[in-house]
C-alpha cells in the first residue's frame, strides 16, 4: 500500500464492508515446472458504506474483479487469501461456516455479473431463478413476490416474462433479471462486476439508471467494477483506480476525474477517446465536391437467408478517397453485414455496390469500376486486393497456429508480389513492431500487438479501402488509443479510404470524417462527424449520443429513454452540406 495516494473517504455512516490489507495469490505452474504463487491482489484496503457507490476502475488483469468477488467469499479455483481480511456485516467472510456463507451469498451481499446471458441458467425459467434467490434465504417465493421483483426491475410484461427462458430475453432484460435475483433478499451490499459491458449504449444507460435507483431505494452499499471510465464516472460517489493488484488512487469521483493525482490515472484519462477529439478535429472534413468516390453503395439490400428479414435494406452511401466513413448503431443494426458485403463474404440481394478506380490507377487497369456485389470467390485479384478487412477480435483474427510472419506474408505474396522476407519486416516496422516478431505465434503477443499485426496484414495487400470492424472494442483504453492513432497515421500516409464500424460514439467522433447511423438495417442519418455530433439529429442518433457516458460525466441523463419515434415513409430531411436525416414521426 505504499504507492497509494489515498485520501480518507468522507464518513457517511458505518462501513458495511471493510477490506483490510487483502492479498490474494493465484497458484500457477505444474509439478514439473514447479508451482508458483502469483499475487493478483496486493495489500488492498477499502470500505463500503450503505447508500454509497464505490467505483473500481482498472484495465483487464488489474485484479479488480478478483477483489470484488471476495465480498461474497468467492475465490477462483487456485486462488487463496495470503493475507488480510474481508469483513462484511461484521463477519470475516473467509471464516464462515458453509451455512453462514450461503446466508452471506445473496442474503447480505449479492452479485450482478458482466454477462447475464451466461450468468443465468439456460435450462430454468427466469421466474424460477428469481424465486430460488428468495427461497434460499427462507423468504416467500410465491408467484406474486416474484412478479413484484420483476416489476421492481422494470421488466416489461412481467407475467409473461417470468415464464420465459433466459435466451428468450434481450440482453437488457437478462441483466434486469440478474438484478432482480441480486436484490431479491434485500442484500445490504451489491457487487456489480462490469454489469453493462456486454450491452448496447442505450440499454447500458437504462440498466445503470435502474441500479442507481435501487441502490438509493434499498440503501445498499455498491461496489461497481468497470473498465469503462464513463460508467464509473457517472455512477460512483467515490472512485478507486486499480492496476497490477493495487489501488493506486481513491477519491471522490468528481475530484478524481477533474484532477487525477496518480500518473496511472492520468494516463488512463488521457487515452479515453473523448480526450482524443481535439486531435481529430484537425482532420479537415473533406466534403469537397471534386472529391473522388472510391466506394458507392446504392439501395443495397442484403439478406442472410431467404426466410429472414433483410439484414440491410435500402442503404446508400459513398466513401471518398482518403475518407473515413463510420457506421454506428447497436448490435444487429446491420453495420457488420455491410462490411461483409463489401468484403464479398455475403451475397448482395439487390442494389449496387461499386469500387471506383482513380484515373490512371495502375491496379485497376481494365475498367475503372469494379462490381463489389460479387462474392470473394468470383472477384478478380485486383478487386480482392483493393478491399481489406480488419477484425474486432484480435484473438480470432490471426491463425493461432501460424506465425505472425506467415500471416503477413500471405497477402504480400498473393497481391503485392513483394519479396516476403523484406516485406514482412518492413510492414511490422510500419505498425510499430520489431521485425523479430515475424517468427512469433499470435499467443505470444498482447492484444494490442495482435491488432497491429491485423493492420499490417491488411496493409500488406496494398489496398484502396480498409474495413475496420470494431477493431478496438476488445482493447483496454490505453491500447485502444494507440491503435487508433496508428490507424490514422497509416491511413494518411498510404492515402487509404476507411470504413470504420463501431458502436462507440467516442471512438467514432475521434477518427471519422463522416458518420452513418444505422438502425434496423437502415441508415437513419448520414453526415460529417461534426454535423452528426452537433445536430440537428434524428431522435435515434440523439439517443445514442445522449446515452454515451464520458469520463467526467456526473449522473445519468433522464431524457435518454424517453425518446420514441417511428419511420415516416421514405423521405429524407436535407440538413445541408451532405447531412441527411431520415424522416420520422413521434410515436
Amino acid at each position, binding site marked *: 500500500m505504499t504507492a497509494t495516494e489515498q485520501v480518507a473517504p468522507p464518513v457517511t455512516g458505518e462501513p458495511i464492508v471493510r477490506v483490510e490489507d487483502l492479498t490474494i495469490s493465484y497458484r500457477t505452474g505444474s509439478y514439473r515446472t514447479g508451482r508458483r504463487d502469483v499475487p493478483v491482489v496486493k495489500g488492498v484496503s477499502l470500505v463500503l458504506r450503505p447508500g454509497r457507490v464505490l467505483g473500481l476502475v482498472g484495465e483487464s488483469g488489474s485484479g479488480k474483479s478478483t477483489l470484488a468477488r471476495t465480498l461474497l467469499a468467492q475465490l477462483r479455483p487456485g486462488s487463496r487469501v495470503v493475507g488480510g481480511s474481508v469483513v462484511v456485516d461484521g463477519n470475516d467472510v473467509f471464516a464462515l461456516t458453509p451455512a453462514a456463507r450461503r446466508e452471506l451469498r445473496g442474503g447480505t451481499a449479492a452479485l450482478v*455479473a458482466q454477462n447475464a446471458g451466461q450468468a443465468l441458467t439456460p435450462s430454468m425459467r427466469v421466474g424460477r431463478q428469481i424465486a430460488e434467490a428468495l427461497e434460499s434465504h427462507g423468504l416467500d417465493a410465491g408467484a406474486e413476490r416474484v412478479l413484484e421483483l420483476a416489476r421492481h426491475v422494470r421488466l416489461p410484461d412481467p407475467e409473461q416474462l417470468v415464464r420465459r427462458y433466459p435466451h428468450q430475453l434481450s440482453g437488457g432484460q437478462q441483466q434486469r433479471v440478474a438484478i432482480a435475483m441480486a436484490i431479491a433478499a434485500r442484500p445490504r451490499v451489491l457487487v456489480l462486476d462490469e454489469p453493462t459491458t456486454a450491452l448496447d449504449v442505450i440499454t447500458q444507460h437504462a440498466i445503470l439508471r435502474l441500479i442507481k435507483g435501487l441502490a438509493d431505494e434499498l440503501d445498499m452499499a455498491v461496489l461497481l467494477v468497470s473498465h469503462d471510465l464513463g460508467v464509473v464516472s457517472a455512477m460512483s460517489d467515490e472512485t478507486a483506480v486499480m492496476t497490477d493488484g493495487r489501488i493506486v488512487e481513491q477519491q471522490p469521483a468528481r475530484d478524481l476525474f477533474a484532477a487525477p493525482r496518480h500518473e496511472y490515472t492520468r494516463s488512463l484519462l488521457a487515452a479515453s477517446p473523448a480526450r482524443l477529439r481535439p486531435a481529430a478535429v484537425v482532420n479537415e472534413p473533406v466534403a469537397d465536391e471534386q472529391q473522388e468516390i472510391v466506394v458507392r453503395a446504392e439501395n443495397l439490400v442484403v439478406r442472410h437467408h431467404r426466410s429472414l428479414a433483410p439484414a440491410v435494406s435500402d442503404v446508400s452511401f459513398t466513401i471518398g478517397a482518403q475518407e473515413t466513413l463510420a457506421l454506428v448503431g447497436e448490435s444487429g443494426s446491420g453495420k457488420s453485414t455491410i462490411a461483409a458485403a463489401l468484403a464479398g463474404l455475403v451475397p448482395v440481394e439487390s442494389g449496387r455496390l461499386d469500387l471506383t478506380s482513380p484515373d490512371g490507377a495502375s491496379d485497376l487497369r481494365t475498367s475503372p469500376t469494379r462490381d463489389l456485389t460479387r462474392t470473394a470467390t468470383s472477384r478478380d485479384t485486383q478487386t480482392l486486393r483493393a478491399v481489406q478487412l480488419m477484425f474486432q477480435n484480435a484473438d480470432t483474427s490471426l491463425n493461432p497456429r501460424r506465425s505472425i510472419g506467415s500471416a503477413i506474408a500471405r497477402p504480400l505474396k498473393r497481391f503485392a508480389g513483394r519479396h516476403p522476407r523484406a516485406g514482412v519486416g518492413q510492414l511490422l516496422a510500419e505498425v510499430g513492431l520489431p521485425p523479430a516478431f515475424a517468427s512469433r505465434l499470435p499467443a505470444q503477443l498482447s492484444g494490442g500487438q495482435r491488432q497491429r499485426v491485423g493492420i499490417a496484414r491488411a496493409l500488406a495487400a496494398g489496398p484502396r479501402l480498409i474495413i475496420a470492424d470494431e477493431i478496438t472494442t476488445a482493447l483496454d483504453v490505453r491500447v485502444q488509443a494507440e491503435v487508433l492513432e496508428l490507424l490514422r497515421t497509416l491511413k494518411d500516409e498510404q492515402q487509404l479510404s476507411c470504413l470504420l464500424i463501431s458502436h462507440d460514439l467516442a471512438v467514432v467522433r475521434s477518427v471519422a470524417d463522416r458518420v452513418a447511423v444505422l438502425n434496423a438495417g437502415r441508415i437513419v442519418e448520414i453526415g460529417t462527424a461534426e454535423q452528426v455530433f452537433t445536430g440537428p439529429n434524428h431522435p435515434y442518433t440523439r439517443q445514442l449520443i445522449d446515452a454515451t457516458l464520458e469520463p467526467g460525466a456526473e449522473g445519468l441523463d433522464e431524457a435518454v429513454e424517453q425518446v420514441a419515434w417511428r419511420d415516416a415513409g421514405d423521405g429524407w430531411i436535407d440538413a445541408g452540406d451532405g447531412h441527411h436525416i431520415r424522416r420520422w414521426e413521434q410515436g
Partner: protein
Amino acid sequence: MSAVVAVGRRVLIALLTIVLASLFVFLAVQALPGDVARQLLGQDATPEAVAALRETLGLDRDVWSRYADWLLGAVRGDFGVSLVSGAPVGPDLLTAFGNSLLIAVPAVLVGITVALLLGVVAGVRRGRTADTAISMTALVLMSVPEFMMATVLVLLFAIVFPVLPAVVLRGPEATPVELLPSVVLPAVVLTLAMAAYVVRSMRSSTIDVMSREFVVTAELKGLTPLQVVRRHALPSALLPVLDVVALNVAWLLGGVVVVENVFNYPGMGKLMIESVHNRDLPMIEAIAVVSAAVYVLCNLAADMTALALDPRLRTRRRTRSRRSA
C-alpha cells in the same frame, strides 16, 4: 421454419440413413465369398444343383434389381424369407431382438443411471478420493476387453460359485421368463463395458459446466451444493453426454455379438454372426435395418432429451446456412 417441416425433415433424414445403411450392407454382402446356395447344399453339391438353387433363390439376377425388389418389399413391411430356414425373417428377428432387449434394457437403465451419477460425483469431487477411485475404475474397465470380463464373471459366478448359469442352453424358443436367470451376467458385462465411457464423459462434462458462470451465479445466490448441481449444473452437463449415451445404447443393441456368443445368448448379435456365416442376405438386411433404426432412434431420443433439457434448442430458429461475417 415450422415445426412440422422440421419434424418431417428429421424423419426423412432418418429414413434415408436407414435405406443407405441397408444398401451398403446389401452391396457388401454381395462381395462375401461363397453364397447361400453353396452354404445350403454343402460341399459335395454338384455345380448344377448349386446353379439351380441360385436360380430358385433369385441369386442369379443383377444386384441392383434385387436390391430394388428387396427395398420395395421392405417398404411394405415384408423383409423376405430367410434363405436358410425358409421362414419369414420377421418373427425370428423379433424374438432375437426382444431377447437382446432383455439384456440391454436393464444394462441401459442401471448402467446409464449409475454411470451418470458416478460421473457427476467424480466431476464435482474433482481431484478428491472419490474422483480418483471412480476414474481409475473406469479407466481399468475401458482397458479390459469385454470377453475377458465375461470370462471372469462366468468363472466366478457360474463355475466357482454356481449361482448363475454360465451359458443359455435354451435357444430362440426360450420364453423371456426362462431366460431371466441367464440375463444377469450378460447384462452385467454390458453394463460395465458401457458405463466406463459414460462415467468419463459425464465427469468431464460436469467439470466443464461446474466452471460456467451460471453455476457460479447459482452458488453466489446462496444455494446448497446439492441444489446447485441438481438444478443448475446437471441439465447442461447432461447435454454433451447424450450423444455418448445414444451411441453406447446403439452399440449395445448392435454390437453385443461378443457377449452373446460367450453366453450363447439367443439375441440379435448371435443371429447376426450366424446370418453372415450363412450369407442369409434377407436376415442380414433385416438386422442391418433394425440396427440402423435403433441407431437412428437413439440419436432421435438423444435429440429429444436435449430439447427437453435445453430450452434454447426448442425456440432457436434454423441457423443461418451461410456464415455471416
